[in-house]
């Protein structure tokens, strides 16, 4: 395995000072790899991603991106150093057009890089190219997710973090989203995601982490976690699990 590009150690984070939700969480992700974080509601999965992204109070720990200390950088700096983040709710600007969403995704870029980024995004997705002046609000859940990922990729990040990318999507669309993420990882991007849809997410992932009560509980190869009876019973819910 290549060495991790993003390495978070002993992260402590939360919304209010002195009241952390994430008590001590560590995770790594390497280029070309999909890593999924699973765990029960309230385990601090989303907060952990938001802490790395600079959206919540970072109270302790260490985050290294390609050997550079990026712990607790504000969100607008994180995108500049190469970490893209796709939030769960409100993942696109619904009052803005597809084109404007993409331009905002490249807000930190200069004019020529922005132009190249737009060309790349439209080249990868004919749908976005055809509908560039459509408002975000008319898009379906799956289309929004596609736009959200394309928006986060505008800056050509080395790491992309996704908070429950398949929440609320139809089962058929869930498969498409995961397939897109697989292709993205194959292009060399490190993908770190949080998923309630744990079983399906682990199937496309290389490795996984199980969090509980704001701490690491288990980690390992995705296939091993899927096969692990204890994980299955506690976190994968045996059969289908509502997200």
């Amino acid at each position, binding site marked *: 395995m290549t060495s991790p590009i993003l390495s978070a150690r002993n992260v402590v984070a939360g919304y209010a000072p002195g009241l952390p939700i994430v008590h001590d969480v560590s995770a790594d992700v390497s280029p070309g790899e999909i890593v999924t974080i699973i765990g029960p509601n309230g385990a601090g999965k989303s907060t952990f991603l938001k802490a790395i*992204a*600079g*959206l919540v109070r970072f109270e302790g720990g260490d985050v290294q991106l390609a050997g550079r200390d990026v712990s607790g950088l*504000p*969100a*607008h700096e*994180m*995108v*500049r150093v190469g970490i893209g*983040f796709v*939030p769960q709710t*409100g*993942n*696109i*600007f*619904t*009052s*803005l*057009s597809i084109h*404007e969403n993409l*331009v*905002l*995704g490249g*807000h*930190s870029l200069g004019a020529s890089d922005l132009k190249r980024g737009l060309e790349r995004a439209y080249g990868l997705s004919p749908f976005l190219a055809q509908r560039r*002046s*459509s*408002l975000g609000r008319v898009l379906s859940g799956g289309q929004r997710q596609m736009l959200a990922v394309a*928006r*986060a990729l505008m*800056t050509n990040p080395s790491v992309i973090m996704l908070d429950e990318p398949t929440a609320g999507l139809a089962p058929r669309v869930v498969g498409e989203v995961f397939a897109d993420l697989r292709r993205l990882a194959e292009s060399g991007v490190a993908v770190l995601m949080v998923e309630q849809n744990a079983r399906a997410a682990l199937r496309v992932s290389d490795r996984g982490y199980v969090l509980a009560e704001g701490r690491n509980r288990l980690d390992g190869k995705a296939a091993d976690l899927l096969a692990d009876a204890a994980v299955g019973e506690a976190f994968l819910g045996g059969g289908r699990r509502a997200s």
Partner: protein
Amino acid sequence: MIGQAIADGLLTGAIISLGAIGVSLSLQILRFANFSHAELLTWGAYLALTFVSFATAGASLGPFSFGWGLLAAVGLAAAGTALLALIVDALVFSRLRSQGAHPLTLVFASFGAALILRNLVLLLWGPEAHYYTTELQIAIEVLPNVRMLPDQIFVLALACVVVLALHLFLRFSRLGMAMRAMAESPALARVCGVETDKVVRWTWIVSGALAAAAGVFSGLTVQLRPEMGFNLLLSLFTAAILGGGGSLIGAVIGGLAVGLSESLSVLAIPTGYKAAVPFLLLLLVLFFRPQGLFGAEERS
């Protein structure tokens, strides 16, 4: 008669629109009802007065009552008012924001800021009315039975230019796009790399400059008094709420609706009740369409 009322209403409405845009921007981007915004109109008007008094008394331009001095003063007053808005933010609102204050706390703070700003005007320039010029103007007949002063036509035209420029700025510039993005979702805007502090600063600059324009235009067509902004406060909020949280166009149409309803009401009810019309309009909007006329749908 009705034509004249419409012309008068459009003029008042244009001035209210310029002020209401600032109120709407703070509602959307800064996320609080800024009751001190009206005082920025007053400050803009008085700053322009000060600049005009320093300018050499130039000849008036064409049919207008003012010369180049006032036009330059509008620009300087816009810059000065923008600076004042930034100072008030640094002293009051940004401190509260950094402490994670409740939006209502900001609203109450804005009442306090308004009192201070208004009384500073009183202290510096006195309670009496001021005028930019004492030139007398003759109204010209723009349409059959519709008369307007050249200054009023100028104000209306310049207000249109300012609104158009702002529309293009918000629609096409990257900063304008970032402002719209932040109005919808500050967190997502930050994730995109938008520096929210910078957007907040530009919001104050734009609303301060527009407030100054509204103040000067109001001073030019009526007179300057320390309470001139305060008297427009309700109209500004009515226009912003009428327009809905959604858009700049909403605030402009809201402003025109308030101006027109005031002037048209005079045809049906005694003039003394004119000031109550924005109240009535506000109540009707809050009852029947609390999201504003443009709150639900937006322009593409």
